[in-house]
């Protein structure tokens, strides 16, 4: 029993350290715009957008293992809806962002219904294709989107406002993921990620669960897209459907740990911080070094940081190794 008490103490200490770190992080984020340069505030704002998109990706791909390469579809839908609304009616900027998010969620229902019929790599590529189709629609539907000319937005939202909106979006993403992780819904999503056929046999309506996660996940890039549009004060097909952001978002979530609550946050911040440092110190070869780092992570840490920490803790907790696995006699 003594060991159990000691273990309980260790866990309690770790939890307290975690809460303390979180409190410090929130305090820093809250006061940062009053001290930091616009450059740094802008850098944090961008990081918030990426982190929240990593959370969105995590909700659909981390939990259900339906790996999406097309979350930027909703980024673009959010950005364009907002830009179109604002260019025709003078909507206050937060309302326009929410309207873009709602539109993306509504469109995610039929899109998800169609796309989730695909599995594995077909789903991933299908989503990639969806983003490209939407970018082409944005280019061609000139009467509404003004095509390649793009739409200018009035400089209504200040950087500081956008910064706090981005921070709030990250907070919402963390809380939603935390709640999903503990919920019945989260367990259903995980079971789909583990074995969809078995999940269905255990009474999980896999179609509905996947669709729900798809729609929920669409709202985060949509909102990020809206905030991004305000930051640029301009939107065109290339900026609304930025292909490179997709990969970056996915790497952040994987870096931290797909399917975990804190993975996208930690992965996102580490990823952008490392990228920034490499850029500042090794301007000429920073992309090369960054690429090498990504390779190293994917090769040696494919499950990400959080599962690695968790596993180390498990090993310490259980001195007796796991029961030997006997292979199936086929």
């Amino acid at each position, binding site marked *: 029993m003594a060991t159990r008490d000691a273990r309980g103490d260790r866990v309690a200490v770790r939890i307290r350290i975690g809460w303390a770190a979180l409190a410090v992080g929130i305090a820093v984020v809250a006061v940062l715009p009053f001290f930091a340069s616009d450059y740094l505030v802008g850098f944090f704002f961008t990081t918030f957008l990426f982190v929240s998109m990593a959370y969105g990706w995590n909700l659909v791909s981390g939990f259900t293992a339906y790996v999406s390469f097309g979350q930027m579809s909703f980024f673009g839908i959010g950005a364009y809806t907002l830009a179109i609304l604002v260019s025709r009616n003078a909507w206050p900027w937060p309302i326009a962002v929410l309207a873009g998010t709602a539109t993306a969620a509504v469109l995610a229902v039929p899109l998800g219904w169609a796309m989730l019929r695909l599995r594995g790599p077909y789903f991933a590529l299908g989503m990639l294709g969806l983003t490209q189709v939407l970018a082409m629609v944005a280019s061609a539907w000139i009467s509404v989107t003004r095509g390649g000319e793009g739409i200018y937005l009035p400089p209504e939202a200040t950087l500081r406002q956008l910064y706090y909106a981005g921070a709030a979006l990250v907070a919402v993403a963390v809380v939603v993921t935390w709640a999903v992780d503990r919920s019945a819904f989260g*367990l259903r999503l995980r079971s789909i990620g583990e074995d969809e056929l078995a999940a269905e046999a255990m009474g999980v309506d896999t179609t509905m669960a996947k669709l729900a996660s798809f729609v929920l996940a669409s709202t985060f890039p949509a909102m990020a897209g809206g905030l991004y549009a305000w930051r640029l004060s301009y939107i065109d097909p290339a900026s609304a459907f930025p292909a490179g952001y997709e990969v970056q978002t996915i790497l952040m979530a994987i870096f931290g740990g797909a399917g975990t609550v804190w993975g996208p946050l930690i992965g996102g911040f580490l990823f952008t911080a490392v990228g920034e440092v490499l850029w500042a110190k090794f301007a000429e070869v920073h992309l090369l070094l960054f690429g090498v780092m990504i390779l190293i992570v994917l090769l040696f840490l494919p499950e990400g940081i959080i599962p690695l920490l968790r596993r180390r803790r498990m090993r310490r907790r259980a001195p007796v190794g796991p029961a030997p696995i006997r292979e199936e006699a086929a």
Partner: protein
Amino acid sequence: MTAPLLEVRDVSKYFEGLRALDGVSFTVEPGVILSIIGPNGAGKTTLFNLITGALAPTRGDILFEGRSILGLRPSRTARLGIGRTFQIVRPFPGLTTLDNVALAALAKVSTRRAAERRAERILELTGLAPFAQLEARNLTLAKRKRLEVARAVALEPKVILLDEVMAGLTPTEVDETIELVKKLRAMGIAAVAGIEHVMQAVKKISDHVVVLNFGKKLAEGPPSEVMRHPEVVKAYLGSQYAEAARKG
């Protein structure tokens, strides 16, 4: 007369002209253990896939408590009361033993906590409680098979389809599984056990036996009677043994 719990009515399933099942009929009464025996390829797993709705039959009808369940997806039949285990075990490898069972319990309760409480009781019943926090991938084959049964029990089914739960187990593990199946019967859960080889288990647990061979029903009846049936002996051991069996 009330309708049987489960009725398979003249069911056929063709795969590209291959007759996996051909006009098979039988009924399962509440609380009864029915064994479906037959050599590899006889159609046992196909039959289970038809009953759960994972596949649609080419012809025929399947009734549960008197109503046709054709066209229902597996999650619906699972919630109606048809649990199943898989021949190639497929517990959720990355979930803990507890979460594996809690997931199935969610078919009956709505909160995660209530599902976990229910799962804890079922783990006690099935002897898996010591492994509750272990990821399922770390369990032995026997325990993974047992976990599959536990998961199916968590659905609170009226009937469980057990696909080869005995195969590949040591004699001791087979005995433990037999005890488990008897426990289910004591709980009022009917079982349909697909069994290829483990004949002593068939004798010990079955109230009724259906023999399949090449997708057709070969014989049906109480276990002792069916096992002596010349056609059955022939299907299993070859005709010379059938001759010997007849001579006594």
